């Protein structure tokens, strides 16, 4: 797949539902994981013999384990409410990127093997045998879903395509048809502790050089401690924060917040990754195994609080699943939520007056905020439903003077995925990623033109990496994207109060 094929659609001022282009994205497939990658995380190395029966049996197993899957496969009435809601459909026009059509790829097989009507009247109810063509279509189109849940907001039954995509990926993994990018990363976490495969000494080195730079820049001893036993807070953050740009500016922001508030904190090499790609492949066991490192590190270091850095799907796993996967957290301080989002922590400190800002430091920016899908639609911050929208915005307003919202249909629970979530942030899928970013780029273009927005803040490592890559395809500057704590970092007052 040559990079030359990457084509960004033209930006329109108003969102337009595309005309169907059947097969427009039939060519877009991820690299298949090789035997070494597969076997390292307990999956068959290549497509197993008898894969058809094994896949059907796996689907049966999942139907017993997940009520959501069972209900979602039964309940759809093909009403069409979701058909114009997926960013990949809006960006590509491929009808199989309509959520209902994507679901039907699995549903037709479910009907054939697990329902009475599909066994006896397959043609009538659209049931189909699991053939090699169907399997290949799964591989194509379930790898064009970022599991962002936007469709589930609008479905009258709350059918969540993410759950169906995860089930399909789980089935494909179990018969030896894994996706290289996600499965390779999972192997790295088990081996090294983070998605990037950054070993402990390199991490220490990186943090120390950041400390030196900060000393030079601010004249203060702002620390980024690693494996500090007895620290109050352990921060678990996406490993991209350690060296990728713009991610690292948010890491510096966290450090300044802890410094200014005088809270002893630490990072951990053992749990040097907040991301959890076990979610993306729908594998409970992998998700639990990855998350277990956090529990082990917290016990080892004897910390009292767990705080999670800016990462969307990581926050979903942490907020929604950690208590289930690696709880109970009876060894932590019950006065704080477990886990706590870095934005919740910063917001509380602002409310209590423990930190303050020189907002003019961000005057060069007109800021807008991109809600990340997993934070918006699969988690919460603070005590109230919707805190995940209010708290990051409150921090931005506290740290910057100029803030503008994008179109109401593209923010909060209706936010559009950046186009790179769900384990497809890989180069061979770049064309899909560029096209999937279209709805967000259109909303951004409008506020760039009307209000001169030049900074899109977000709290997700994948969003930051995806936008950095994709913005230039739409003639935007790649440095327009950054973290909320990047703004915090610019404006927070560090001197003695």
């Amino acid at each position, binding site marked *: 797949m040559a990079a030359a094929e990457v084509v960004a659609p033209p930006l329109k001022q108003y969102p337009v539902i595309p005309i*169907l282009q059947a097969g427009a994205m039939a060519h877009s497939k991820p690299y298949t994981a090789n035997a070494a990658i597969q076997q390292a995380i307990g999956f068959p190395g290549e497509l197993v013999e008898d894969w058809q029966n094994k896949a059907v049996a796996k689907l049966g197993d999942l139907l017993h384990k997940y009520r959501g899957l069972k*209900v979602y496969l*039964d309940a759809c009435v093909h009403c*069409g409410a979701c058909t114009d809601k997926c960013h990949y459909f809006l960006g590509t026009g491929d009808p199989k990127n309509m959520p209902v059509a994507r679901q039907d790829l699995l549903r037709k097989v479910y009907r054939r093997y697990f*329902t009475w009507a599909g066994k006896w009247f397959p043609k009538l109810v659209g049931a189909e045998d699991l053939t090699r063509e169907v399997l290949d279509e799964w591989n194509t189109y379930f790898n064009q879903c970022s599991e962002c849940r936007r469709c589930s*907001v609008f479905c009258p039954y709350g059918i969540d395509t993410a759950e169906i995509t995860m089930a399909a990926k789980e089935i494909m993994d179990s018969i030896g048809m894994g996706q290289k990018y996600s499965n390779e990363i999972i192997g790295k976490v088990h081996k090294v502790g983070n998605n990037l495969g950054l070993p402990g000494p390199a991490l220490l080195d990186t943090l120390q050089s950041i400390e030196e730079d900060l000393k030079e820049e601010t004249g203060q001893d702002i620390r980024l401690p690693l494996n500090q036993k007895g620290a109050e807070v352990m921060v678990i953050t996406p490993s991209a924060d350690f060296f990728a740009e713009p991610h690292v500016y948010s890491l510096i922001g966290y450090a300044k917040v802890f410094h200014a508030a005088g809270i002893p904190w630490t990072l951990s090499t053992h749990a040097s990754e907040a991301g959890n790609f076990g979610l993306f492949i729908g594998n409970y066991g992998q998700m639990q195994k990855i998350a277990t490192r956090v529990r082990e590190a917290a016990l080892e270091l004897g910390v009292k609080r767990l705080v999670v850095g800016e990462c969307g799907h990581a926050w979903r796993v942490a*907020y929604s699943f950690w208590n*289930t996967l690696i709880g109970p957290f009876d060894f932590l301080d019950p006065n704080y939520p477990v886990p706590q989002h870095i934005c919740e922590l910063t917001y509380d400190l602002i409310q209590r007056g423990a930190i303050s800002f020189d907002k003019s430091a961000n005057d060069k920016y007109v800021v807008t905020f991109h809600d990340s899908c997993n934070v918006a639609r699969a*988690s*919460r911050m603070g005590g109230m439903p919707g805190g995940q929208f209010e708290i990051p915005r409150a921090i931005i307003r506290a740290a910057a003077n100029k803030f503008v919202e994008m179109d109401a249909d593209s923010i909060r629970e209706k936010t559009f995925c950046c186009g790179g979530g769900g384990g497809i942030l890989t180069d061979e899928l770049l064309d899909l990623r560029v096209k999937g970013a279209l709805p967000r780029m259109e909303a951004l273009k409008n506020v760039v033109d009307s209000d001169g927005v030049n900074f899109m803040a977000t709290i997700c490592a994948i969003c930051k990496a995806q936008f950095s890559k994709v913005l230039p395809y739409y003639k935007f500057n790649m440095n327009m994207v950054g973290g909320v704590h990047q703004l915090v970092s610019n404006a927070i007052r560090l001197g003695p109060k």
Partner: protein
Amino acid sequence: MTAATIFYALLFYAAFLLCVIGLVYKIADYARTPAPLKIPTTPAPTTAGGVVLRMLREVGLFESLFKANLWIWLFGFMFHVALALVLMRHLRYFTEPVWFWVAWIQPFGIYGGLAMVAGLAGLWARRFLVERIRYISTFSDHLMLALLAGIGISGLLMKFVAHTDIISVKAFFLGLMRFDWQPLPTQPLLLVHLTLVALLIAIFPYSKLLHAPGLFFSPGRNQADNPREQRHIAPWAAALEKAKP
């Protein structure tokens, strides 16, 4: 006792049995299957009371559909409310004496019948006119609409064009309920109406009509958003935990 009476009596018993057995099985199956992870679509209510309210809005107002698409909402809502009204109006065939509120809604029920068919027509038109919905529509989607429209239209025809002997129809159904069969009038329109209704009852648990019970079991809608406050763990996940060294 005519052959038609015996046939329709058996037909309705069979349809009713198929429906009840299928529904009990499906609902038990849904209830038995765990939801191992907290996956409500957020922002979601944080308490059980809040979940009840969210469900009521979904069931009573089709809140999510309203957010999604006004046309689908309009036709879908019109059809479902009208259908509910028509069903309530039909209770008079199964109760003696007729409950006062059933008697009271009789005149509105007629508008219900009209609105029901209009709503179905709107939903059906979308399956032809909107390219995206045409693409996702299957043969059974059309058949289901044909079935419901057939029921509505045959019913309306009996009201407005060719009256049927509803006293005898009522006697037939009361007889069915008391296992004391009474003769069924054999007007063709009535027999068409009853055949389609029996078919609808029979296929309810084996078709996409499962969306009705399904909604109540949808984790995206029926879970409270409180994973930090309360540990949520499915039996199979707990067993997994215990099996570990």
